[in-house]
């Protein structure tokens, strides 16, 4: 479950310039956060009280009048007094660069000066909140699969199925080969950048034979093209995905492959598939 971050955007002091505060509020909402905007002329007491009452994860303080050095630290002091030190506080406005170290020393986590893209502010808050809460699975740090390498289709007999693909659809049969490790015979049919992989069981205990017995012929798996397959397998495991293969096994066409267990992928059988370099270059 993705956590919805709650943010209080506040205007401390007498400053009436709220264009920045309003734009940031809207941008954070569009990013998926819940935002409460205090309106103008809030005292540090009102801001700290509202933050606690609204149970926010973060506060954004906006000040363009030059009163930040007095008002921002006062908000921090009051949050501490209320035992709300865990709230992430950031600031923005017309704030001279030389004041930033002082504000940071008072606990303001980051000061965003004019010209900062709003997405940067949103990401900073998100990351700071996740770090504080020890949430890691939300932050995707790995390398995403690059393409659909192929779609696997279980058939009873390649001889019976192939004429449909080749003669009727007019696709090109690239190769037929046996993969002993999977106890299957496969036919590769090229279609654009990807392939259809027709699978026929070689033995009765082949996974394809079992699949057809349970569900009949049809789409069997989707193969995602990746690089550094072992790293990807480890990443999946660290994200709690159950793997059928903990290490890559040889697949058809000289590829290294590993299957994920459908129980942790919403019932789709996915295969991670890495084509070796020489094979790639040969293409």
């Amino acid at each position, binding site marked *: 479950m993705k956590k919805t971050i709650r943010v209080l955007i506040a205007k401390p*002091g*007498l400053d*009436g310039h709220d264009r920045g505060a309003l*734009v940031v509020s809207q941008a954070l909402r569009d990013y998926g956060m819940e935002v409460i905007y205090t*309106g103008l002329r809030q005292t540090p007491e009102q801001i700290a009280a509202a933050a606690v009452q609204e149970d926010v994860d973060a506060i954004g303080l906006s000040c363009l009048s*030059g009163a930040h050095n007095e008002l921002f630290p006062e908000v921090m002091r009051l949050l501490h007094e209320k035992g709300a030190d865990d709230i992430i506080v950031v600031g923005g406005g*017309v704030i001279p660069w030389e004041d930033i170290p002082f504000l940071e020393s008072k606990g303001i986590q980051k000061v965003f*000066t004019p010209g900062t893209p709003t*997405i940067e502010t949103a990401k900073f808050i998100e990351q700071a909140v996740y770090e504080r809460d020890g949430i890691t699975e939300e932050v995707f740090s790995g390398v995403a699969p690059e393409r659909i390498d192929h779609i696997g289709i279980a058939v009873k007999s390649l001889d019976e199925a192939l004429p449909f693909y080749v003669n009727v659809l007019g696709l090109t049969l690239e190769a037929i080969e046996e993969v002993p490790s999977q106890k299957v015979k496969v036919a590769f049919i090229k279609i654009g950048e990807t392939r259809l992989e027709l699978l026929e069981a070689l033995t009765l205990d082949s996974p394809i034979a079992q699949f057809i017995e349970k569900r009949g012929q049809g789409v069997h798996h989707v193969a995602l093209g990746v690089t550094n397959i072992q790293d990807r397998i480890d990443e999946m495991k660290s994200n709690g995905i159950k793997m059928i293969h903990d290490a890559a096994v040889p697949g058809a066409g000289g590829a290294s492959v590993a299957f994920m267990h459908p129980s942790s992928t919403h019932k789709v059988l996915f295969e991670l598939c890495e084509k070796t370099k020489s094979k790639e270059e040969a293409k």
Partner: protein
Amino acid sequence: MDKQQRIKEWQEKTEQSMNRFPERKERFHTSSDIEVGRLYGTEEEHYPMESLGLPGEYPYTRGSQSTMYRARFWTMRQYAGFGSAEETNKRFRYLLDQGQTGLSVAFDLPTQIGYDSDHSMSRGEVGKVGVAIDSIEDMEALLKDIPLDKVSTSMTINAPASVLLAMYIAVAEKQGVGPEKLSGTIQNDILKEYIARGTYIFPPKPSMRLITDIFGYCQEFVPKWNTISISGYHIREAGANAAQELAFTIANGLAYVDAAIESGLKIDDFAPRLAFFFNAHNQFFEEVAKFRAARRMWAKLMREHYGAKNPKSWQLRFHTQTGGSTLTAQQPDNNIVRVTTQALSAVLGGTQSLHTNSRDEALALPTEDSARIALRTQQILAHETGVADTVDPLAGSYYVEHLTDELERKANEYIEKINQMGGAVAAVEQGYMQREIHHTSYETQKKIENGQEIIVGMNKFSIENEPQPELLRVDPTLGEKQKEKLQTLKAKRDQNRVSAQLDSLRAAAKSDDNLMPIIVECVKSYCTIGEICGVLREEFGEYTGV
């Protein structure tokens, strides 16, 4: 009237007025010795007399005076003020020495919101965005050795405008200058405070009363004073586009006119003292067109809708400031270039006075160096470029005339919508303008972030490790010093007189009497701005936003 006849009469009238207000030079010419005439275009067979008119004549599209800058440049009026009254007085005298021709006072936020420096809400704000004024004592220090009968002063003050104007009148009296000799402007535009700038105090109804009280009082006693500066500047800074700036400003202007008429004033008695204040942003031709459209729209409304007879009531005279929100914190020297083109658009649009922003305003208040470069920018435009040598030089440009017509059309659509809502006051109370502006400002931000709009030095052509410029610091102990000063004053003044005046103020607030005379008495008795606004807060209540 026949076109030729009209032009002939205009020429005669212009020659006559030149006896009193001669042009800057006997003869204007370019570097190649090409003679520069006063006005071009009227010799054309199809000159659009109805929509452009002649300079200084209805509908004023080409300018509010007949010779414009050939007689006198615009007033160079740099907005300044920070820290104590004494410090600001020094900066004023520096600017006057440097050739500035008018003063413009920035007040700190407590002053603008009617709090004394020792009020708890004033914490951290004393002297920050302008000068701190608590009582007439501070005002005397601010204006020390400045001849108030010779210098015109603009004061950016809105909700407590009556109080600051009263102080100005009282200080002038001490200098021996009568109110009839004073010239200057108070901003006094509360509607745009609700919409965009945020320094409101009271709800709309009593706020409008304070404004019309000033109109009435000045008409009688301070006749050369501009009683309001109806401001699009802050509406634009809050994120509006040019058409919205134009529309909402004029809609607000109409609301003040309606309120004044309702309070019993006659249009031609107060309309000549209404002034306007616009922004100059980056889209060069659109800005020029905006100023020209504004003059024409206002003239039509005053003459045709309100039936004003005095040509001075038809004239929209305006101050311009370059766009603060267009300045970048990155590579701040680039801002000098932005300010230059913005200032040029204001000059080509016929502004009466101009403030050019300093390069470092996205970072802090301007340093003395930055403020000087900003003033020099105007002086270079005036003295070196020749753009001021002929009247309305962009008239007749197909593009500029098209933009002028289109801005007028778009602004009129907004004004029509606002009229249907019951006028600007009702529209503000419903948050209409606020929503429109926010929508535009968010769209702009998105365009900047996805690179559809390029800001040089910020989302393109940026550099790593920028050098950090020197910035101005306001004395951090000022708040305490100002508090002490206030305590000393309170100890030495005649407390009975103070209480008596505040009681009279309360009584006047409950009645329909004009509040200005009693506010003048209050400030002379050393009542502070916080005390005066405190009484009015109790009587009028406070506005808390939409």
